[in-house]
């Protein structure tokens, strides 16, 4: 960690830990997420990847350590407060609002930071601020043509894209993406990777993903977790030849 705080480090965690009963699910994680970088976190099931995302986004409290958003210590902040401050996340299982239109899914997310939610005389459908943000997010996620469709009628790949678009609608600085490629075909994966490439410039991206080809194609930095601890954190080239990683993870399946 550089001594004068690096303005490109948008999110970092220090000695982050989480205990479930007697089990240390995550133990002493210290990581940085930089603007312009996709930082992939890989590891077998149960390595603590989702727990890490849950703690960074504030969905579950940490048992120890701290989370910093820029220069701000957000460890004690609630999840909604962290989200409004710029931490956006997607879920492993698709969690869209199926009965709303694709556009309304994003518009609603954009509305979260709106200053006057209780202005009852103003129609939500005609809210310009959130509407504009939603259209922009749909464009960035490549969904603008499906805007008026019911979200539940999208294909699986479309729903995953919508997850990203909803995340973007909150205007996040940091994107925590939990397996955005799960269950996708090759073509859908390509499209999603393009979307993620486009997002790099303005955001710090944490990518939890099982698709190793995709991870090595897109990530600038890869962290490997085993049993809640980091065994390696480096560039993709270095990770590929890392002996410990090969024996613990890459060599076995895939």
């Amino acid at each position, binding site marked *: 960690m550089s001594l004068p705080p690096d303005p490109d480090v948008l999110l970092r965690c220090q000695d982050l830990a989480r205990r479930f009963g007697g089990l240390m699910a995550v133990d002493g994680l210290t990581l940085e997420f930089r603007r312009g970088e996709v930082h992939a976190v890989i590891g077998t099931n149960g390595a603590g990847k989702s727990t890490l995302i849950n703690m960074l986004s504030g969905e579950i409290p940490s048992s120890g350590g701290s989370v910093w958003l820029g220069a701000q210590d957000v460890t004690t902040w609630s999840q909604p407060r962290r989200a409004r401050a710029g931490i956006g996340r997607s879920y492993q299982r698709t969690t869209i609002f199926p009965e709303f239109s694709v556009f309304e899914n994003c518009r609603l997310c954009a509305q979260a930071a709106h200053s006057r939610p209780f202005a*009852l005389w103003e129609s939500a459908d005609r809210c310009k601020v959130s509407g504009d943000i939603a259209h922009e997010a749909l464009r960035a996620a490549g969904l603008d043509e499906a805007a008026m469709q019911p979200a539940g009628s999208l294909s699986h790949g479309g729903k995953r894209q919508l997850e990203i678009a909803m995340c973007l609608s909150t205007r996040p600085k940091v994107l925590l993406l939990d397996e955005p490629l799960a269950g996708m075909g090759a073509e859908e994966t390509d499209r999603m990777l393009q979307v993620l490439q486009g997002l790099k410039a303005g955001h710090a991206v944490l990518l939890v993903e099982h698709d190793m080809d995709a991870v090595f194609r897109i990530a600038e930095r890869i962290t490997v977790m085993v049993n809640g601890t980091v065994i390696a954190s480096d560039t993709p080239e270095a990770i590929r030849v890392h002996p410990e990683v090969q024996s613990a993870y890459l060599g076995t399946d895939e």
Partner: protein
Amino acid sequence: MIRRAFPWIVAVLLLAAPALLTPYTYDLLLRIMVMAVFALSLELLVGMTGLVSLGHAAFLGIGAYSTVLLSPQYDPGNALLLLLTAAGISALYALFVGALSLRTKGVYFIMVTLAFAQMAYFVFHDTPIGRGTDGIYLVARPVAGAFDAENRTHLYYLVTGTLIGTYGLLALVRRSRFGHALAGIRVNEQRMRAVGFATYVYKLAAFVLAGALAGVAGFLLAVKDGFVNPELLSWHESGAVLLMIILGGIGHLRGAVLGAAAFVLLRELYASPDLVGPVSEHWQLALGLTIIVFVALLPKGLIGLPARLRGRR
């Protein structure tokens, strides 16, 4: 088109109705409209926010009791002031109940709201405040300027106006950003928190508004009947209003009004010996069976009847 115009047509008919009413139909219509205000207030919680409360009658009863207890003993009180205090006191109790109960979810929420309603019930049933099982009479109905609730036409327009106002307010809530956020909380609260909504505050605001509107319904009921008793706060009443919105169709404001009308009319039908003979002695049984049949045949409520008749599901 017709469906969108429907509430407006009903509103115009209601405003024109007093000329045509007999004393019997007048009382029945008033009862339906008061219950419709009550059902609409619960629809805000159940249909719009996804919070199933089994203690909503507490707010009705508190509104009704505060109207009677705060009226001068022999003189008429100020109608506007009583209306606002009924809404305000119910809203305060809703703030207290909501602040605690909204920390729970699902069946626990149902049980906690029921428990708080039972607490309120026993306060009015067993303490000197409520003067026991017999309840209290409202000696003089309230007035405000030229308005006098003792006058049947005035009272009619007070109730009709309040129903239309409540419906209009909730229609505004539905289309507002607040209403859209409530809909999001109903579908997926977890996701709403993840994008930055402090969902607890939104739910609490909905709970307090619903309590205030139920208090308004209580005010109307007290003024209409000139009498209150603890049964207004009982869990039977909470269950009845829940049945009304289920009967009418959850998720629609029209459903709440329709359900209130259907419930009051069915109850009236089965309790009238002239119409149903000996069944009237067991009207609860007949009402219960009818509601089971309705719900089985019309899972979307009466609001889904036209679609059902056209063969769509």
